[in-house]
């Protein structure tokens, strides 16, 4: 099977460790992710102003590119790209007046009415592969590893684009279980990581991130997994600040969910680009005995 793939700018710069592990894992599972030939920024944040159509141009243009390449589905890895593209897609599908305005403005492009379906990588696994088949494909079960799967804000909100039941999402839990790991009790799985406050109001961001890490720690998690580069920035790259500002907290390994997928599938750890994670990420996996099954 082949599917259109929208990477997003961050996956090509700061979050290369989210991307390659995903592409290689899918290849191992028999799905080829074909990157769109042309694409631009997704818009990053969906504008909440009802009449702010100019911010819909970027995601709509990406969806047009997917349609022009005759893809009926486009998959994303980054939670924020997913959110922005899926919401823009919904608007293009459902709001006839705004759709006309946008299509008229982008007269150099083909008209678009939401023909492409935007899905997140977790949906791709659940709907195209299935948990049982994934379980069968696991070569290095993550036995003994207790994981806190973190949705953040953008995978389940607003409810009309949620990747799973918005009130009781289980998709990430099923993913963790399929890999053979244990799910930690994690009250803050859908709490905010601090988001862009890390730029304008770092104290607020550190306090939000602290709550997430504290919750994972309380649930006995060995590590936290996520799918959003901004969450990763606040919870991982800036974790030293969070931990030093909160005496009760301890360092917590953070991984992109695709990295642990690749490890569980027995792929070469090289594809995970662990050098972009916290310095001790690889050592942590080694200590847990999870790199033994890696293809030599």
């Amino acid at each position, binding site marked *: 099977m082949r599917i259109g793939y929208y*990477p997003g*700018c961050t996956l*090509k*710069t700061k979050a290369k460790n989210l991307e390659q592990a995903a592409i290689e894992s899918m290849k191992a599972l028999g799905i080829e992710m074909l990157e769109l030939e*042309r*694409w*631009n*920024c997704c*818009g990053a944040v969906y504008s909440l102003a009802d009449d702010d159509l*100019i*911010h819909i*141009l*970027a995601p709509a*243009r990406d969806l047009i590119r997917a349609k022009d390449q005759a893809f009926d589905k486009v998959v994303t890895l980054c939670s924020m790209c997913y959110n922005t593209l899926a919401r823009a897609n919904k608007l293009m599908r459902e709001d006839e007046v705004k759709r006309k305005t946008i299509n008229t*403005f*982008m007269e*150099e492009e083909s008209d678009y009415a939401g023909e492409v379906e935007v899905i997140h990588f977790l949906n791709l696994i659940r709907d195209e592969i299935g948990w049982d088949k994934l379980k069968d494909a696991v070569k290095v079960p993550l036995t003994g590893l207790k994981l806190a799967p973190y949705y953040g804000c953008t995978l389940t909100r607003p409810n009309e684009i949620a990747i799973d039941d918005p009130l009781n999402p289980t998709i990430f839990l099923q993913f963790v279980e399929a890999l053979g790991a244990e799910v930690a009790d994690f009250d803050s799985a859908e709490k905010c990581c601090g988001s862009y406050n890390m730029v304008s109001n770092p104290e607020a961001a550190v306090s939000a991130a602290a709550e997430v890490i504290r919750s994972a720690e309380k649930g006995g998690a060995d590590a936290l997994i996520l799918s959003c580069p901004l969450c990763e920035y606040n919870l991982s790259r800036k974790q030293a600040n969070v931990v030093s500002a909160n005496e009760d907290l301890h360092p917590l390994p953070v991984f992109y969910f695709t990295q642990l997928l690749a490890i569980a599938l027995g792929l070469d750890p090289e594809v995970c680009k662990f050098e972009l994670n916290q310095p001790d990420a690889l050592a942590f996996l080694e200590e847990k005995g999870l790199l033994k099954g890696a293809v030599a």
Partner: protein
Amino acid sequence: MCSSDTMTAEETVKAVEAVMIPVYIMGKKYMVPESLTIMKAMEYAGYKFVRGAGCRGGVCGACGTVYRLPGDYHIRVGLACQTVVEPEMYLAQIPFYPANRATYNWDELKGEAEEVYAAYPELFRCLACNACTKVCPMDVPVMEYIAAIKQGDLDKAAQLSFDCIQCGLCATRCMGEMAQYHIAQMVRRIRGKFIAVPSEHVGKQVDAIKSGYYDKTMEELKALGTVDPFSDKGESDEIKKLKQLYKEREMESHAVEDSWKPENDYALLK
């Protein structure tokens, strides 16, 4: 018939028995010969270019022009030296448009995308409206190269922007208020220094020049004597000889096969 390069506008008009058409230059109506470029039409109308004109060959980017046609809301653009006038066009030259250029220390650069972001953080204000691409007289995919920079692909951005002539029209239309063409120039410089593979034959040729391979030819040319441009004695034999050599030189045409070689191959490296 002599070429248009050597004719004045008035001579051209007589030679072709011009059909006159109305154009509006900065709102004022002029009747100009229909066969002229915008630049020549403006000169015909009495304008004298002290800015906004350069090579007159469609390369330097100095003469960016915007115009509109009746009954059409689109902004149209062209280089004044290349675009032929159309009836009823409303036009104006954009000889200069403010566009900040970042200062960076070339010797300290490592050739990373982050350095471009630091020099031009405004590039993240791109909304993908594509107005830049639509206004480019060189058909450069401006929005696409800005997207490539945001994706950290400087090689791709440099190649996509290769035809840019720095006219600056993109910057006039940008909602994000960036000067795309300056950003692209930084990226192309980075590509030249850090990404492009040095071409072997250029190195060989430089070595050949240094080693004195062409000294003999140069000496022969010099031996023809010095030329006094202010002399009123007419063309000397030396100058005639030089001109003859120049006229007879072999040139590779644009359409030749890769296997082309000059008949006289003394200058080729063996």
